């Protein structure tokens, strides 16, 4: 029995080795064939006189896909719109996005394909902290511009170490600072509980939040992404007597935490960070329960959140009107969502960066253009970027708002700040308006 078993095991191991060897051979063969021959003669990978190729990785399937899989469709629609209007410096933007299922192993694989096989000129908006971390070193060592990562982690703002990588949305630390200050000023008596995703998201947010709320925080509970049972965390928040809970979590955990609170008859004032609070998405996850026995369809009504882009519900906003038009002309049959607006806003910023890089862009030139003119770029974002040679941090602020039905109402004007102990100040100046044709105006000179 034993010898048979071990022989079988040996045979099994040999088979595994053989498979590994074959895969390795295939991979190296592909690599050799697809290596960019770009450097010679100043030719840039992914760039021709007629086109420029841009790549991205998104979770199109799996745990993180609800909502997030909409983002690249928005980006694509805006690029198609720009292409229909002549492209950037006469070049059509070719946008290639691949599915990584929010799995870092798969991210490495698809980014490899994007860089070696598709030969993209630059990456745009790769989504997720764990996922994008896996390709950070690779993209920087290959010299691929890695613009506007779709995640609020602080990892993207390390210009010394990762000169190619730029953040985009307000990072979790400054968002938590602004929420923290708001709560400390408006709910000074509240006992605050934190509901945190147990990774960078929760860690950065806790640092920011504690700057203003340290005295008021009675509990900080963490959940492990992937484990959908949040009963113990919510029970602990309730046991600690928290009457104001701030969640830094992804949308599905907003739904899970709300359901669990129902179960426990726990009814604190909730606040969720921007990424976890999309009313349409969380609403669609929770809506079905109203057919069962959770009678209150507007489970998120009254929840406090933040915004840094125009909402799809703000029909009067000129940017929302522009994006609605773009989506009607170049989108799919599905509805325009906040996630698609997010994708379009990233595309808008990318078009500006590409314009700033001049008629003969290089990879280095694109990075330099964002560093030099990024802070002046105007667009749908409510607060300016913090880009410079010293900083690769994205949008500098948010406004606090309250969810009402499917939309939101403002609680504060836009406030801006920076990491660490930088003060929080109101953002001066009126909101920007889009140019008439919906395409960014190239910088002069």
């Amino acid at each position, binding site marked *: 029995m034993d010898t048979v078993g071990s022989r079988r095991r040996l045979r099994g191991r040999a088979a595994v080795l053989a498979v590994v060897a074959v895969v390795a051979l295939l991979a190296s063969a592909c690599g050799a064939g697809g290596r960019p021959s770009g450097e010679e003669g100043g030719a840039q990978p992914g760039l021709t006189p007629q086109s420029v190729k841009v790549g991205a990785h998104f979770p199109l399937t*799996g745990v993180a896909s609800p909502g997030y899989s909409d983002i690249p469709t928005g980006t694509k629609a805006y690029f198609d719109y720009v292409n229909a209007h002549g492209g950037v410096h006469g070049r059509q933007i070719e946008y290639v996005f691949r599915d990584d299922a929010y799995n870092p192993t798969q991210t490495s694989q698809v980014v490899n394909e994007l860089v070696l096989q598709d030969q993209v000129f630059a990456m745009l908006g790769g989504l997720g902290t764990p996922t994008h971390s896996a390709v950070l070193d690779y993209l920087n060592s290959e010299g691929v511009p890695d613009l506007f990562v779709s995640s609020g982690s602080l990892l993207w703002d390390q210009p010394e170490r990762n000169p190619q990588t730029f953040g985009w949305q307000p990072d979790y630390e400054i968002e938590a600072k602004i929420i923290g200050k708001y709560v400390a000023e408006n709910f000074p008596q509240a006992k605050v509980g934190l509901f945190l995703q147990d990774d960078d998201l929760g860690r950065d947010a806790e640092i920011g939040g504690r700057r203003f709320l340290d005295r008021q925080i009675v509990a900080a509970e963490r959940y492990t992404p992937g484990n959908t049972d949040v009963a113990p965390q919510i029970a602990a928040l309730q046991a600690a007597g928290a009457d104001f809970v701030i969640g830094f979590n992804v949308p599905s955990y907003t*739904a899970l935490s709300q359901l669990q609170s129902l*179960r426990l008859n726990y009814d604190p004032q909730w606040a969720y960070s921007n990424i976890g609070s999309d009313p349409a998405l969380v609403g669609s996850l929770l809506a079905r*329960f109203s057919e069962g026995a959770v009678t209150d369809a507007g489970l998120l009504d009254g929840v406090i959140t933040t915004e840094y882009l125009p909402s799809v519900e703000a029909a009067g906003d000129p940017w929302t009107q522009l994006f609605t038009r773009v989506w009607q002309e170049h989108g799919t049959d599905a509805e325009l969502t906040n996630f698609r607006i997010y994708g379009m806003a990233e595309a808008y910023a990318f078009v500006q960066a590409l314009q700033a890089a001049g008629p003969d862009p290089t990879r280095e030139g694109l990075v330099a253009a964002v560093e030099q003119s990024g802070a002046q770029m105007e667009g749908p974002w409510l607060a300016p970027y913090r880009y410079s040679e010293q900083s690769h941090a994205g949008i500098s602020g948010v406004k606090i708002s309250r969810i009402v039905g499917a939309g939101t109402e403002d609680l504060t004007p836009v406030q801006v700040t920076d990491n660490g102990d930088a003060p929080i100040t109101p953002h001066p100046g009126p909101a920007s308006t889009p140019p008439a044709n919906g395409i960014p105006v190239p910088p002069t000179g």
Partner: protein
Amino acid sequence: MQQFLNVTLTGLSQGAIYAAFALALVLIWRSTRIVNFAQGSMGMFTTYLALIVIEGTGSYWLGLVVALGAGLLLGAAIERLIIRRVEGGPELSAIIVTLGLFVAIQALAAILFGATFRSFPAPFDLRGMMVGGVNVALTPFSVFVIGSVVLVMAALVALFRFTDVGLRMRAAAFDQEVSRLLGVPVGPLLTLGWALAAVVGSLAGLLIAGGSLVYPAYMDPIIVYGFVAAVLGGLDSPGGAVVGGLAMGLALSYVSGYVGSELVAMAALAILVAVLLVRPHGLFARTAARRV
């Protein structure tokens, strides 16, 4: 105290689901001596079918009936068409086949139903009940969960103890050759065993989905915890599976509530190893028959 009560009640209703799942494993083990790793995927698949029916008709109960019916057919079909071909061969092949089915069904579900989160309705209120001003973390839905598991267990015990079919099923499982000689139709009974187990597995899938989110891999933790629960109870005893399930539910809920939710999977492993070391045949196994 309030937290202890909450953690305990949450553990009990989770435990009831682990128990149902363990019951399904025990049923198949009793009838064919196979640990069916595909049980979770099968339950997930029928739960998606229920979701489609519920979305189409708006009736939870119709969805429930469809899921259980589909489970019955799926279990029978898998036994008759796939497992039958590897039965009687090396024990390991059947188990590997169920592992293969586990992956294949999950992939199929992702293709057919999509891989995103979807909410699954519950037929009863999801709000905790208030008893004399104190909130208890027991919802009408979890009462329904516990009630259905108890009912199913009672029905199975009755089937095996008091009916002819049950006796024959036990005989067929115990010794196929002798049973055949005695005129027991072994083949159909094995199919029936799988079909019944798949019904119970489908029920577990439905119960865990109710009032929560489903996606193709949502049964994965249940497979692990249900398996530990079944081993805890001795793999051979329906009563043991239920006790094992409840014990797992409580233990994991306490670990999660008082130690840390990241340690839940580790705790399950620790329990499994401890049980295998101390009582390799489980807490409730009567005999050490059929050692292989």
